[in-house]
């Protein structure tokens, strides 16, 4: 007769469901991301005025709800351009920079990281030395020099961000690849004669994808902040194009007289960035809780 193990009530940690706050924050995050995307895509439809049209008679007009009789919802800037319309158009710059730079750096970094982690050897060694070098180069100094050489511009700022960030993805993906490449199911696939390319694509990549998605989402937020900061310093996109960082740079001389000029563009940056941060946080909780 078999001895039945004594029924001991192990202190199983009570797994509480996600706090209500978590679902609320996800909804808020998706809402903010959706709003910024809508603004960028449908700018010509949504913007009440031409963002470039200056009206010197209406310069620094306060917002409608602040001073009665103003026809401008969020006021005007120093040469009488409609701030709301410029914010809506500015979403195009921020989101283009955020999404394209992250797409470039994540795809390139993931590909290099997969190759380095899966094959190892001198290629891995060389890649990782190069990644170390890239990661220890302070971003602001790199951006300062590169933009001084190339001049400001949308493409250049995307280039700077992509070049400085591929290494984070490469490192992340490499470590995931190393962790799974000796796993039984991959050994089995190899024994069955499955080609390396297919193993990487079907088995290694999917394992790394969760972590990549988390990093990418949070990087979109970060890159929107970096672009705005560089543009504010005059090292970002062309000052003639409506962008949030550029609007704040223009507004800094009127901070004493026109608070709305420097308040709303910054609010737009903050809300958009917060949207991506909220979604990224939720993804992190879901996909890779160990990722810091």
């Amino acid at each position, binding site marked *: 007769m078999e001895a039945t193990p004594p029924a001991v009530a192990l202190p199983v940690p009570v797994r509480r469901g996600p706090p209500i706050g978590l679902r609320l924050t996800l909804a808020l995050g998706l809402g903010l991301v959706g709003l910024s995307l809508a603004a960028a895509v449908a700018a010509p439809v949504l913007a009440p005025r031409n963002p470039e049209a200056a009206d010197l008679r209406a310069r620094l007009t306060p917002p409608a709800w602040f001073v009665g009789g103003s026809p401008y919802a969020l006021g005007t800037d120093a040469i009488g351009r409609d701030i709301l319309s410029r914010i809506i158009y500015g979403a195009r710059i921020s989101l283009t920079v955020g999404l394209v730079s992250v797409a470039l750096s994540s795809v390139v970094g993931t590909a290099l990281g997969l190759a380095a982690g899966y094959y190892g050897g001198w290629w891995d060694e060389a890649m990782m030395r190069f990644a170390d070098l890239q990661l220890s*180069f302070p971003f*602001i100094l790199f951006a300062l020099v590169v933009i001084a050489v190339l001049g400001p511009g949308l493409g250049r700022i995307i280039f700077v961000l992509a070049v400085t960030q591929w290494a984070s993805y490469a490192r992340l993906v490499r470590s995931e690849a190393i962790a799974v490449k000796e796993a039984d199911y991959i050994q089995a696939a190899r024994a069955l004669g499955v080609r390396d390319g297919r193993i990487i694509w079907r088995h290694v990549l999917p394992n790394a994808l969760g972590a990549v998605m988390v990093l990418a989402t949070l990087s979109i937020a970060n890159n929107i902040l970096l672009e705005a*900061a560089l543009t504010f310093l005059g090292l970002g996109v062309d000052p003639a194009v409506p962008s949030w960082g550029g609007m704040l740079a223009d507004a800094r001389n009127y901070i004493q007289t026109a608070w709305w000029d420097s308040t709303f563009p910054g609010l737009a940056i903050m809300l958009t960035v917060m949207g991506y941060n909220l979604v990224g946080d939720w993804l992190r909780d879901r996909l890779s809780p160990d990722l*810091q």
Partner: protein
Amino acid sequence: MTRFVAARAGGAAAVLAAISLFVAFGIRLTGDPAVAMFEGAGAPSVQDVQRMHQAFGTDRPFVVQYGAFAGAALRGNLGTSFRSGEPVSALIAARAGATLALAVGGMVVALAVAFPLGTYAAMHRDALADFLIRVGSLLGLSFPNFWLAIMLILLLAVRVRWFPPSGYSGPASLVLPCLTLGVILASTLVRLVRASLLDTLGQPYIRTARAKGMPERLVIVRHGLRNALLPVVTFIGLQFGGLLGGVVILENVFAWPGLGQLALEAVSYRDYPVVQGVVVVLALGVVAVNLLVDLSYGLLNPRVRVG
């Protein structure tokens, strides 16, 4: 251990060499310092520009120029500014204090905010306060630092005139820049303190400490925080490069007489020696801190030493 130190120090030196080469080469592609010199003074003649180049030494091949710069820099001489004729090291020394004050002040604010809040959140996990602290930190993470600076100027220097809006005119000038930098830094730190402390509080020795009747406050401080400190300190060290980015932009917003402003001005004047000097000195600071973190890690955790 000696090999580990040598390898890491060698790596740091290589990074520094690569950065100096990159900067020296890059800045020479941005434009002619001789032409920048004559800006606003009419078109210079060819001879004038030539004489300038001879005086600056910019008529020589790049390899010679870089070699001269690197050789002198290793002996502590960073050259003289094209624009003012002053030694670059003197220009840097005059500005370094302001940058250091900003960085240290910001860090102090960040630690003073992050440790109490992070600890409180960890002790009251999933309670309302924890949720609020986490939301607050996320909000802080989403703030563009320069916009937070502008908003603080708007409220605390323009509305109520408590602090000077910009420039450096005594200790009160430090408040707004350090507050801005500190709040942004604290947003990241607070999450790290919370996560690290939660991790530590799950350890068996914490249960032992509690089981033997140690007061909870002592458990947190003596066993929890002390052990949670390591990842936090590492993170602070590794964040130094990012901190530098914040410092450069905040110096700009607050018209702060520091190294970031010096670099931005020098770039616009094509003042090669100043750009090279400032970038190399700033990079040296970042690389040195990273190296220290790396080495102390190796000292504390022998497993890291391999490779």
